[in-house]
């Protein structure tokens, strides 16, 4: 055992000892166990007063900006609505064909037909016009800031942490100050969407410009390029693909924020359609509208990524052919527009002809619930009592005659202690001391639950994890973050966030890496899984909620399921990617030595893929947190709910502190997992680039 592991063993033993003391002594520890409420600074009043003063003083400025922004939105809306749907169909279908061929063209045409015939055309256009205005703004801002960060090292160092913060602050939290400053209206959606959508463009711009190979730059300089020629004729075109990927990500972020922004209401767009129908429990309607969002997301994603991936290198004949194609398409658009003037159905789909299967869908659902109520309830109850509650409030309180069939008598406690002690003892005998200490800690946490464990112990555990993975500076950083959460009095909802997110990540990661491993070993599985996770990833967050709310109604279990299903995406993707992209030589060498397939997987591939899988865990956590906030809609009582409440009441302080608290949790998790991955990379002597 070397000095390092010895040191961590001591540290962890201290942590376990302290946690054990807090568990045994319980509430008699007083302040050390329950964070005293009077120690929380009451920031609510001053923050709200500050914001009120700011709004009163500078409100005119933002009102003016809002007024300016209203024009392009109005313009986009007017233009889009003036074009008959059939002309739009032709144009979009041709663009889809250019971007990715016949498949996407057919998909695009069918989607637009769906939007029209199911009566969502107007709402779709309203959402789309916001997206259309916000994308060029976000791209321009992102490209400008990215270029600045590329040119100046100092700017880079300021920009990166700001982006981290902007991308970890939950989408909901963005809306609140914007709402207060700009007042109700479409502008809120636009501003929020631009603010939310430009960071990925910044990242991609910096990555793209930095990634231009040195020889290309040198050859540009030696060709006699002036600095501006070097930038516009060498760097930007060489970084083209990365920049277009940035536009793709910006588009997706913009759409998802436009959808989320409809939560403030008053807009007749597709996001509002979904939300209002969910609230009225009209699940058929909300699913039909949700499908529209999903279709929009998929088409926008495939189209922009199609243009990004398409080769820029075309011979002259092909270029000419494309130009001619666009001309013909323009002609057809004009023709159909004229035709639409003569045949009104091509311009505005009549209300009588709208297909509306929602009532029968609702009836079908009704029948389904009646038929399967027992099964569904059982699933929900089991997960709730045997998994979620123990982690939340601990076995200590979760075990009751009502749920487990017996109560937590001293005898049961003893049995539990023995059940934990035996494997711990076994590990000690085996010499795996550190593992034994961790097992003991998990045993303690399961007994008292995240909510039941003393705040001092929980803080200590988190700080020590940070210290052990990222050194003293990370530990100090985490301590400061936790202090913020404690001092602003959001500790309790933060712990609930931690618990929901933790359970979801645990399930998503275990399940996801298992699927990822399977997919890496089996091409058929991979081909099946790929489109599913691609689709899930492009789905705007609260569309994912709909099916789960439908089946399991509101509550923590529904929240958990939606988080798991969304957070599983990176777990699968990174695991498969990590396993499939190992150095070929190592795999060949191991095969040549005579490993069986299982030996190869478990003793060669998996250990080498661990850094990538850890990055997957990192992304799993990030995905989980972004979904966690959205699940406030289905009634959780965590930080997300606080943000939601703040948004509903226009309470800046409540919403903002909760939003920053959520960002702190996300950043702590991010830094810890990143440092673990970096440590492993260093150990294995590899370097992974984390994508934007």
């Amino acid at each position, binding site marked *: 055992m070397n000095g390092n592991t010895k040191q961590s063993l001591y540290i962890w033993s201290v942590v376990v000892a302290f946690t054990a003391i807090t568990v045994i002594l319980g509430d008699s520890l007083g302040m050390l166990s329950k964070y005293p409420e009077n120690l929380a600074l009451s920031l609510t009043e001053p923050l709200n007063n500050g914001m009120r003063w700011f709004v009163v003083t500078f409100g005119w400025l933002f009102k003016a900006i809002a007024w300016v922004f209203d024009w392009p939105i109005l313009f986009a809306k007017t233009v889009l609505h003036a074009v008959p749907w059939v002309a739009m169909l032709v144009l979009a279908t041709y663009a889809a064909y250019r971007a990715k061929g016949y498949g996407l063209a057919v998909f695009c045409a069918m989607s637009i037909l769906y939007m029209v015939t199911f009566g969502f055309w107007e709402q779709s256009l309203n959402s789309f016009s916001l997206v259309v205005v916000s994308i060029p703004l976000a791209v321009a801002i992102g490209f400008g800031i990215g270029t600045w960060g590329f040119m100046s090292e100092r700017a880079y160092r300021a920009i990166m942490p700001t982006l981290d913060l902007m991308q970890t602050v939950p989408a909901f939290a963005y809306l609140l100050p914007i709402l207060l400053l700009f007042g109700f209206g479409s502008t809120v959606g636009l501003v929020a969407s631009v603010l939310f959508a430009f960071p990925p463009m910044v990242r991609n711009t910096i990555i793209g410009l930095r990634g231009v190979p040195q020889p290309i730059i040198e*050859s540009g300089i*030696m060709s006699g390029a002036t600095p501006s020629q070097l930038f516009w004729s060498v760097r930007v075109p*060489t970084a083209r693909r990365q920049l277009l990927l940035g536009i793709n990500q910006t588009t997706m972020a913009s759409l998802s924020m436009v959808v989320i922004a409809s939560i403030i209401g008053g807009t007749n767009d597709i996001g509002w359609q979904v939300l209002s129908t969910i609230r009225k429990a009209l699940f058929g309607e909300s699913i039909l509208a949700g499908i529209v969002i999903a279709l929009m997301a998929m088409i926008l994603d495939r189209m922009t990524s199609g243009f990004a991936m398409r080769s820029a290198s075309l011979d*002259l004949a092909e270029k000419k052919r494309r130009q001619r194609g666009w001309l013909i398409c323009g002609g057809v658009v004009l023709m159909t527009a004229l035709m639409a003037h003569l045949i009104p159905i091509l311009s505005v789909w009549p209300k009588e002809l709208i297909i509306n299967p929602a009532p029968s869908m609702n009836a079908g659902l009704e029948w389904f619930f009646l038929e399967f109520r027992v099964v569904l309830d059982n699933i929900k109850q089991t997960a709730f009592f045997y998994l979620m509650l123990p982690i939340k409030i601990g076995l200590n309180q979760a075990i009751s005659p009502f749920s487990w069939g017996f109560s937590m008598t001293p005898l049961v406690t003893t049995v539990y202690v023995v059940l934990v002690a035996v494997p711990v003892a076994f590990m000690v005998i085996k010499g795996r001391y550190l593992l034994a200490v961790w097992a003991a800690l998990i045993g303690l946490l399961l007994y008292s639950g995240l909510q039941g464990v003393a705040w001092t112990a929980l803080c200590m555990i988190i700080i020590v994890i940070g210290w052990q993975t990222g050194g003293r500076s990370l530990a100090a950083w985490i301590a400061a973050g936790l202090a913020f959460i404690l001092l602003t009095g959001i500790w309790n909802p933060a712990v609930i966030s931690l618990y929901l997110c933790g359970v979801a990540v645990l399930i998503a990661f275990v399940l996801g890496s298992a699927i990822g491993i399977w997919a890496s070993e089996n091409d058929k599985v991979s081909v099946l899984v790929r489109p599913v996770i691609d689709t899930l990833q492009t789905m705007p967050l609260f569309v994912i909620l709909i099916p789960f709310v439908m089946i399991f109604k509101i509550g923590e279990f529904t929240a958990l399921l939606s988080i798991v299903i969304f957070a599983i995406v990176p777990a699968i993707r990174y695991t498969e990617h990590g396993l499939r992209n190992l150095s070929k030589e190592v795999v060949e060498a191991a095969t040549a030595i005579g490993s069986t397939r299982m030996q190869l997987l478990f003793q060669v591939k998996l250990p080498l893929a661990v850094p990538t899988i850890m990055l997957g865990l990192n992304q799993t956590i990030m995905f989980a947190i972004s979904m966690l906030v959205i699940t406030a809609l289905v009634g959780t009582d965590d930080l997300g709910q606080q943000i939601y409440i703040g948004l509903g009441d226009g309470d800046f302080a409540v919403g903002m502190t909760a939003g920053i608290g959520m960002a702190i949790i996300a950043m702590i998790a991010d830094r810890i997992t990143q440092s673990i991955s970096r440590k492993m990379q260093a150990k294995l002597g590899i370097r992974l680039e984390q994508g934007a």
Partner: protein
Amino acid sequence: MSVNDSFTPKLSCRNLWKLYGPGVSGFLSDESRLPQNGGDGKLLAQSIREQGGIVASADVSFDLMPGEIFVIMGLSGSGKSTVVRCLSRLVEPTSGEILLDGLNLLQASPKELIDFRRYKMGMVFQSFGLLPHLNVFENIAFPLKLQGMPLQDRSARVERVIALVGLEGREDSYPSQLSGGQQQRVGIARSLAVEPEVWFLDEPFSALDPLIRRQMQDEFLRLQQELHKSIVFITHDFLEALRVADRMAIMKDGAVVQIGRPVDLILKPEDSYVREFTNDVPWELILTAGDIASDNAPPEGVREVSADTKVCDLLPYLSEHDSGVAVRTADHSLYHMTGKDVIAALASGMSTTTTAKS
């Protein structure tokens, strides 16, 4: 090889230093320690390294004569790429002088420098440095476009260099559609399009397969016979250096170990480091009849060859004619050379032979 009658250097590199690391300019502030002021360059480099500085180039000086191919040869990390980048100011030298036609490049303003690069210099890169979004024609025309040359002149110029490097018919291809050899032809054509006076080639053929490399070297020599550029050619391949060089410099640890004609390096290696390289050289490819011929006068009636005939070309003849050949030197005197002389020369490792007669 071409020899220009002018004896003023086209390009001069004087006491060039390039240091990396914190506070490096301070290392050279003591003027008296600089070699041009009587200091010892090796000692200075050594002391800089001991203080934590990185010495990429240490007191490098050489002249490039008009129409000459000057090869800088060294292993990776020897500083040869740094030197060529300093010559074009892709890398800013820490101290020294670069004189192009007598003008100090290091004092050129950014604008003047751009003009130097636009009209006087061409450079070829190991990894080609082609712009992926432009086709062959556009890549070659790129420097001309930056100059603002009208399209018609551009096309004429580009067609000429395309013919020169043998890329006719590939004008519309993109770099990704070309083989390595073809990509480097594009790189060569692009650097020649501006009709440069000084041509830098940074390991131009190192990324290519051996057979292609050989072929490209031949074509490069053929081009040079036509164009008579003044060339700095970087390579890590000693045999390549021998093939193309008029003169060459061997570099180690940022410093020049020896400068001379290839045959000088082989026959009189400065130290064991240079000898290491010469050990593997197939002597018969380098040595000329003049290097080997004995001091005796030739018998009557044997075949006569000039002193710069490569030994390898004579081997078939010598194997069938015991009487050997008569070697005529530059001053028209005749010496005798037989197969035995060749064998003796190869066997002795050439350590005793002199080159007086050449």
